[in-house]
Every structure is written in structure tokens, then in C-alpha cells.
């Protein structure tokens, strides 16, 4: 037997009119899997080691400030001396999963899953990065900025939420995580079902796109969202402590509901191969999380059949797991040196500038050109981000003390006096390069600080599914048409200016899908095909507001914005006889020019072994307006070898 069955009870006798579920019974199964991904793309440009600006010299735009009467000589800015690296392996991990299933009584069952995951970076330079979060606060590795201020090293890194734990039942270290993604009791009696404990909740049926699937955020620390597309985030959804239940009415309509503790999406950790937040930024995740950690999300879904159509209606009140971002004060020495907090000793700590949204960091952004490129690449506005960072309330005093100004306001003022004097962009570049000047004049390279907030919203939605019954072997023979749509009133989005004031708009999200199994050959199992179209009215697939889209890729610039997001996905699976082999292809295409192609094969020669070999090809046509633009270097070939026991 390839499983361990612990049957505590004497085996019951087959029964009639009632089951002999007399004694508790438990079964234990497990899996160990090696997961490796070879990097076939380029270095991750969100990292210091992969930044295209490493060591790059730029001529400053400081001369743009001459319109303000500042005649400073142009100089060369040089990005920090971080050694440029390109990793061979994006992932080299070992996973262990152990499931314990228990039937405790006729109506109560127990399920628990223990998951261990150890990353073993094969590239030396990656070994001092914290892959999972807790080490960033507890066991932080040295960081080059630390000696600069004689500070503990961790302050420059992300301040991960919940002390670095991704979910309620998790422990982790720099290169491992151990969690219990499932630990729940099920109670079922008649049409009533209750599930209590740590659990995943997955709604909706769309591939890639999460329209109805709004209950939980994603844990992207292990393989980002680049795992096997057909698995639909099943390993990524963040489990949460929840009560979930359903009641099925006499007409077979079912009302399902849940109440769960809020847990945010966890992004890949800074500096690691899949990270998507520039390493030159520190994101304060904890303060926002602290405010909302006790939030309880609730949701309901009513499902049933009307004529031949499967219908679902849902309503969810949640704290958004993905969160929104805004500038944050650097908070390096707020109690003693902040010039605007009234506690200062009167001696400005020039060079540190507590109270600003920046702080000097040799690995930080070093030139206006880099700022413009990076902001645009991440779908921010390089000019208004500067405006808000120096004029909005949290920073205004410190910024004024540092001589900072709003390029947009100043340009407007100058142009009002003398039309055509300058532009906000020119002033922004000049001001930025002034900041990036050596400390005698400015601050040198700067690190940016961000807050991550978790806003509340209510989502309502409806879905329908209809199966066509055309003539046998025709296109409409068992063709499944599915529609999912949601509406969120007053949804908050990160402003491309990173303002303290978020963008607030109603958002409509929908996906239309066609699914079909078609038998092309009598000798082969049917081919599964699905085509989908996703539409969002305000943000892209990753939730970034579309007003940040559209700027020159090479130089960056003020975004022109997009009106709507549209993407299509196509996937097929072709099993071979006996299902021992299966070929997959998944394609995701953002109509603005972003492409993800994921071909793969699965080999299952025995019940205790499986090999998956897949590749991710990503491409963007530039223009900073498609979803692949910020991750397009992450091409890879990945392999999973699983042993089940």
C-alpha cells in the first residue's frame, strides 16, 4: 500500500439504513516534491542586483532649475556599486506536504495539511536574502546601508506585516516556511454544512482571472503567480481562520456564507528572483495591517439552477487583501531628530531628513532618469509622485526645510508669469537630480518609503453557466459558456502619484469564457480547450489603476492612462492514452501587448511519482501599458518532481 491508513476502529460492517461510522478513523498521506526553475530570461530588474541602472552614469538635469535662479553645474550621477548579477535559478526548493484526514463521527470530519517549503538558492549572491519574511525582522542579514547610520540593518528592508508571517499558522526563517494551510472541522447534517478552522475558500471558475475568486489574497512568495496555470492559484490562496457553511434548500438552491479573518496578499520578498517591488523602496506593511488585522470579511453566495442555466449571486464585504500604497515618512529617528515633530534637538540631521518620504541609501535611486524610468515602469507618475512626496501633509514641513518644492505647482506658477518657461517634467528632473547630488548639495541616492493600506469594500456579482447541446461532434456539442461579473462601488486604488488620497471609483469586472472538450481523434482522449475574455473598467489584472498606464518605456514620463483593461486567455490540455502523459498550453494576452505563454508536459508513470516540466515565456511590447511589462524578464523553465506517499 502506498498510503498509511490508521484505522482506530475495528472495521465496521456494511450497513443498511444507516452507516456504521462508529469509531474515529484517520488516514495520512503525503508528498515530497523538488521544484526548480531555471532562469531563461534576464535578471529581475526590481532588485538591486538586477537593476538596469547598476553602475550607470547619467548626466544630471540639474540645469533645468536655472529657471528658478539656481545655476548649478551639471554633474554625473552614478548608480550604486551593486554588483550586477544574473541568477541561474529562480527557484530551487523542496516541498513536503502531509495530509491528515480524520472522520470523527458520522457528521464530523477533520482535515489538516502541513506544508514545509525550503528554498535553497543556488546562486551565492541570493543566499543572504530573506525569502519568507520573518528573518527581515528577527534575523536580518547585514545590509550595506546599516553602517551609514549605525543602525540595525532591518530598518531599510521591508517591514513585513504580522512580523513576517504569511498566514495565521505559519513559521518561517530566511529560507524556509512551515505552515498549516488547512486545519478545520467539517460538520454535515442533511443540507447543512459547516467548516470551521484555517481554510482556503475558492469561488469562481475562471483561469488566470480572479473575478468571483475574491475571498482570499495570494501568497506569492514561493512561485509568484507563475506556477502551473491550470492549477488556478490553488497553492497560493492564503488560508485564513474562518467559519464557512452552506444550506441547501428543498429546490436545490444553495446559500453559502463565510466569515473569515482578514489576511493580506503576500508579495515575493524584496531582492528575491520573483520580487515585484523595487528593492530601493521600503514598504511599511505592518502599520496598515495592525489597523485591520482584526477585521472579519464576510460573504454570501446563492447558487442554483434556473432552467438549464447555473446561476450564482454573490456579495462580499472585505478588507482588500492586495492593499493600496502611498508615500510614507521614513521614520528613521522620529522621536529625536524629526524637525517637525517638536522633539528635535534643533540640529537638523542633514542627510537623514526624518519626515521625508525618502532617506539616503547608497543602493537607492540615484538619478532623475532612473526615477522617471522606474516610476513609469511600475505604473506611477514620475512627476506627481514627486509633487505629493514634498507637498502633502506628512512630508511638507520636512520637505520645505530641505528646500523641496512641487514641480507641477512651481511650473504652473512660472508659466503663469511667463508662458512656456518650463514644464513640470523638466523641473521634476532638475529637482530630483538636485536631491541625488552628493550630500554637500543634496542627499545622494535615495530610498523611498511607502505605506501599504488595506481598504474596505463591498463586491457584488453574478455568474451564469450554460451548456450548449449541439449535434454530436459539432462545435456546440457540450460547449460551456460562462460569465462572471462583479461590481465594486467606491473601490480605492493606489494613486499613480502615491498620494495620501487614493483614487476612488466604481469598478466593473467581468470574464466571459467558452470551454469545450473536443475529441479530435478516437485514439486520444479529448482535448480540453478554454478561451476567456476579461474586462476591467478601472484597473489591470494586478489591480493597478489604469491612469498609470502609457509612457515611453525607455525614458519614462507622465502616463497618458488607459480607459479599460482587456485580456484574453486560451488554454488547452491534451492528455494521451491512459492519461500518463499530458501536454498543456496556456496563453494570457493583454490586448495592450503583454503576453505569457506557458507550455508544459506532465508525466505520471506511477501513482507515487509525477514529473511536470513547464516553461514561462513573457513578453511586452513596451509602452508601460500591459501587465507583462513589469515582469517580462522572468522567463523560465520549471520542473517539479513529486513523490507521493
Amino acid at each position: 500500500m502506498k498510503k498509511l491508513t490508521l484505522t482506530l476502529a475495528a472495521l465496521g460492517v456494511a450497513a443498511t439504513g444507516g452507516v456504521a461510522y462508529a469509531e474515529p478513523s484517520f488516514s495520512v498521506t503525503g508528498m515530497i516534491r523538488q521544484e526548480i526553475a531555471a532562469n531563461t530570461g534576464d535578471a529581475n530588474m526590481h532588485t538591486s542586483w538586477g537593476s538596469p541602472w547598476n553602475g550607470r552614469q547619467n548626466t544630471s538635469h540639474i540645469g533645468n532649475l536655472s529657471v528658478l535662479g539656481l545655476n548649478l553645474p551639471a554633474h554625473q550621477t552614478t548608480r550604486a556599486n551593486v554588483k550586477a548579477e544574473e541568477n541561474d535559478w529562480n527557484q530551487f526548493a523542496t516541498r513536503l506536504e502531509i495530509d491528515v484526514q480524520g472522520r470523527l463521527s458520522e457528521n464530523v470530519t477533520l482535515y489538516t495539511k502541513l506544508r514545509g517549503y525550503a528554498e535553497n538558492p543556488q546562486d551565492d549572491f541570493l543566499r543572504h536574502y530573506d525569502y519568507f519574511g520573518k528573518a527581515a525582522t528577527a534575523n536580518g542579514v547585514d545590509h550595506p546601508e546599516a553602517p551609514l547610520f549605525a543602525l540595525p540593518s532591518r530598518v531599510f528592508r521591508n517591514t513585513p506585516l504580522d512580523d513576517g508571517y504569511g498566514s495565521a499558522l505559519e513559521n518561517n526563517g530566511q529560507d524556509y516556511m512551515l505552515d498549516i494551510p488547512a486545519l478545520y472541522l467539517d460538520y454535515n447534517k442533511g443540507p447543512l454544512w459547516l467548516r470551521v478552522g484555517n481554510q482556503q475558500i475558492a469561488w469562481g471558475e475562471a483561469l488566470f482571472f480572479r473575478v468571483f475568486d475574491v475571498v482570499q489574497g495570494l501568497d506569492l512568495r514561493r512561485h509568484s503567480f507563475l506556477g502551473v496555470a491550470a492549477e488556478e492559484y490553488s497553492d497560493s490562496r492564503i488560508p485564513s481562520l474562518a467559519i464557512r457553511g452552506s444550506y441547501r434548500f428543498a429546490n436545490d438552491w444553495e446559500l453559502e456564507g463565510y466569515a473569515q479573518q482578514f489576511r493580506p496578499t503576500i508579495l515575493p520578498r524584496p531582492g528575491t528572483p520573483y520580487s515585484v517591488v523595487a528593492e530601493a523602496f521600503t514598504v511599511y506593511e505592518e502599520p496598515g495591517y495592525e489597523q485591520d488585522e482584526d477585521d472579519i470579511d464576510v460573504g454570501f453566495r446563492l447558487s442554483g439552477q434556473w432552467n438549464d442555466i447555473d446561476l450564482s449571486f454573490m456579495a462580499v464585504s472585505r478588507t482588500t487583501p492586495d492593499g493600496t500604497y502611498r508615500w510614507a515618512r521614513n521614520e528613521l529617528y522620529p522621536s529625536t531628530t524629526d524637525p517637525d515633530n517638536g522633539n528635535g534637538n534643533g540640529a537638523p540631521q542633514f542627510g537623514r531628513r526624518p519626515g521625508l518620504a525618502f532617506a539616503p541609501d547608497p543602493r537607492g535611486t540615484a538619478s532623475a532618469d532612473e526615477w522617471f524610468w522606474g516610476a513609469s515602469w511600475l505604473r506611477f507618475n514620475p512627476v506627481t509622485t514627486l509633487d505629493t512626496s514634498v507637498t502633502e501633509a506628512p512630508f511638507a514641513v520636512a520637505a520645505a526645510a530641505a528646500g523641496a518644492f512641487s514641480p507641477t505647482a512651481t511650473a504652473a506658477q512660472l508659466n503663469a508669469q511667463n508662458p512656456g518657461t518650463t514644464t513640470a517634467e523638466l523641473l521634476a528632473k532638475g529637482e530630483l537630480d538636485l536631491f541625488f547630488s552628493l550630500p554637500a548639495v543634496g542627499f545622494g541616492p535615495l530610498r523611498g518609503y511607502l505605506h501599504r493600506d488595506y481598504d474596505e469594500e463591498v463586491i457584488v456579482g453574478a455568474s451564469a453557466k450554460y451548456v450548449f447541446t449541439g449535434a454530436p461532434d459539432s462545435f456546440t456539442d457540450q460547449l460551456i459558456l460562462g460569465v462572471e461579473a462583479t461590481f465594486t462601488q467606491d473601490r480605492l486604488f493606489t494613486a499613480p502619484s502615491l498620494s495620501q488620497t487614493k483614487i476612488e471609483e466604481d469598478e466593473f469586472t467581468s470574464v466571459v469564457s467558452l470551454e469545450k472538450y473536443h475529441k479530435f481523434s478516437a485514439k486520444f482522449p479529448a482535448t480540453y480547450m478554454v478561451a476567456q475574455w476579461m474586462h476591467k473598467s478601472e484597473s489591470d489584472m494586478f489591480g493597478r489603476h489604469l491612469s498609470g498606464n502609457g509612457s515611453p518605456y525607455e525614458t519614462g514620463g507622465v502616463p497618458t492612462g488607459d480607459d479599460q483593461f482587456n485580456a484574453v486567455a486560451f488554454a488547452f490540455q491534451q492528455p494521451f492514452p491512459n492519461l500518463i502523459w499530458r501536454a498543456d498550453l496556456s496563453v494570457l494576452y493583454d490586448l495592450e501587448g503583454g503576453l505569457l505563454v506557458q507550455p508544459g508536459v506532465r508525466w505520471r508513470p506511477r501513482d507515487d511519482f509525477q514529473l511536470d516540466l513547464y516553461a514561462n515565456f513573457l513578453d511586452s511590447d513596451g509602452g508601460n501599458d500591459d501587465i507583462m511589462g513589469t515582469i517580462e524578464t522572468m522567463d523560465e523553465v520549471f520542473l517539479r518532481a513529486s513523490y507521493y506517499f
Partner: protein
Amino acid sequence: MHIKKFDSNYSRRFFMKQMATGALATGVLAPLWSTIAMGRTLEGVYPDEISSFEGLTKGKINNGDVINANNVDFLKDYMDEVAFMQVKEMGREIDTHATTLDPSYLSPPDYLGASVKNSGRAKFNADGNVVTDDGSAWIGGNPFPDAKNGAEAFANITMSWGRYDNTFYAIQEDDLNPDGSVAYSYDFAWIEQQATGRVSDPEGVYFKGQQDTVRYQTAWFNAPQDVKGTAFLSTWPYDQRQYPKLEGYLPAFKRVRRFPTNQRFEPLLPGPTWYLSDAWGAGDPWLTWGNFKIVHRGPMVGPAGGGNFNSKDPNWKRERVGGPQGTSFFRSDYEVIPDVVVIDCEPTGYPRAPISKRRVYLDARTMVAYTSVSYDRQGKVYKNFEHGNGMSIDKDGTVTKAYRGGPLWTWNFVIIHDVQTGRISLPELVKEMAGGYPTHYDDTADYDRYLTKSAIRRLGA
């Protein structure tokens, strides 16, 4: 005591005449169905020449002997060609026992009772579906216990599979490589509920009073690890021209999805050589098949009665025999089935099905299929699907009182042998599957436990 007054070719002439005239009347010496309806045994229904191995082989093989490569030639005309090949060429051995004469050992009691009670009330409506004389959905038992043609016979085996209102079959399955080694092992439950034609339910013959559904059926896998929680729920419309609705929970998705259901010739998971279409010899809505034709009548040998159960194993696991490693087949127990109706039918509603026809062998005593053989599109033998029907009685006669204080009628095992690839699947009914779920019958609570969309979501790991 068997009747000897007819010569040894009497029954052969009887069946040939029936085939020639196109009539299908069961019972050779006396009408089968009226004998059963009167509560009598089958002792006077069939002559000795087709009621024992001695009679059938003119003494070459006796009841109680073992069928093996040395003597199987004497039974060549009485076995399906795959089973014959397994014995002749692969070392399969089959035990034998006397022909079952007690009708209550050939069918569950309530199903038998309903067949008697409702006899003569079934007809086909204009759509070809089975209805009662007042046009209602069928009310239980064999609609056509004395079937007169292939369509009626096929309706019998499709309208009720397991012949209970509710069944929870705990199953362990090994899927073998051509070398006889085990490639895959699965623990799963096959759960059925009749939605119409209920025979034991005090609340009536229609579940919830509805007449639009014939059955609910779930296949729920509980081991190994990666398939744990995989479940497929089929809801069969009463109209047999329509495909069942198929919903599935796959651990990879973590959610219930609707699946197209016309692809009924695919294994559900890697390894198994069986399809949904194979179940009970009639796995699809029967009006999606066509060209039903009776191609043979006469005695055959096959599993029925006792001998295919094994209470000696704590989990009812059965002994195996034959094949490269001596473990490729269940050591089954055959009897002479005096009257077998062999029906050829074609998957007319499945243009790209990998099979061109299926040959189904029905035990006419109870109108249940005990084996079927599928042929590929070139007409070559593809695979068999032999289900060891019978009572919960061991080879040595030990009775396991597993149903209402007495022995249980059930399927015991299935042998599915893909003769073109040499792969064999061996699902067998066990006492309990992984997770502590026992085989059980007639539990109406199973609908809520296993046969709804929310149930398969809950069962999913």
C-alpha cells in the same frame, strides 16, 4: 433435481428458434419470470444440460472444478473471448460452483420484489424513454423483467445500476502495467442514488417527488495524496437522450467546476482502463447508444451467486491469480448461467468514441449484465469489463450477513483488461476505504453527504 426428459440438444434448439424468430422468451422448460413471480426456485426452468458444468461439458468439467488452461477449451463457446484468453494464455484460474437456483441470490430483495410488483407496467413513450402505463417515470424494479428485445433488455440494465436505492461502494483499485506490476492504486467511493424507481424508500418511488432525474452518482477519490478529494458528480436526467450533468472537484482547482459530459470514453485519472461509459455495462444514457441487437442466446459461464466474496480478509480483499506475476486477475468463481442474452450495441451518439461496439452479456434470470466486451473502431477486441456479481458468500460457503441480517447481493470486483496495451484495472469492493468510510446501502442521508455540489466541495481536500 434436474429434469432429464429432454435430450441434450433441446435447449440449443430452443435458443436457436428464439434467435430465428426474433422472440425473447426466458425460461426453457417453464417461463422464467412467472416462476420467479410465484416465489419458486429456478429448478424447473432450465434442463440439466445448461444448469451445471457437468451438463454443459458432458462431464469434462464438474461443478467445483477449477477452470484453467488445461480444460478451458471445453468452455470456449460459453465464455467471452477476453476471459477465455486470460485463462488459456495468461494463467488465470477460475473456481466454479453450482448454478444458483434461488432468485433471491441473484438480485437485492426489494428490487426483485419491485420487479414482481410492477411487472407489465412499463412501456416506451414516444421519446423512447421508459414510463409506466400512466406515463409517469418508472416506479422501480426491472421495467421489462421478461424483456422481449434488445432495447427492453438494455433499459433494464441502465435504469437502475446497483439495484438499491442508495449505495456507497468503498473501492480499492490497482491498475497494472503490462508486466503485472502495480502502477497506480486508488481508494475511492462509487456512490449511487436512484432518483426515480426507488424500491426501498418508505417516502415513495420518486426522490423528493421529482420525476426528472434517474440517478445521482459520485465517484470520490480519497487516496493517494494528489487525487485526494477529487470527485465527479453526475446527475442523470430522466430523459435518456440527454447527457448527465457532470460537476467535478479537483484538488488542483480547489473548487467545483462544471465539466462537459459528452466525453464519456476517457479515464477519470491516470491509470484506470475503465471509462464512465463502461459502468455496469451500461454507463451512458441508453438512448445515446443505438443499434441494439441480440446476437446470441444460450448458456454461458460467468460470475453469479456465491464464491466471489472474501470475508477472510479483514477488508474483503480477494485473492488474485494469473498474469506475469500471478496477480493480474481476481480469483473469481463462475457458475453456469443457463440463459444469457448477448446484445451488441453501438455508441451512435459519440462519433469519435474509441469503440465501435460493445457486446454486453446479460444474465436473463435477473436481467443484469455480468460482463461486456468493447471493440475498437477496426472491430478488434479492445477490452472487457467483467463485474463479479454475487452474494456476500465466500468460496467455502461462509456467509457474511452484510445486509438486513443476511447475505448481500452486490458486485464484488471488476476486471478491466485492455488487451491491446496489456494494462489491467482491478477495482474491488472493500469493507472500508481510506479515511474510514465503509461500504453501505440504503442510507438516504448519503444524498446530502456525497451527491450534491456542496457535498463534493466539502469532500474535497
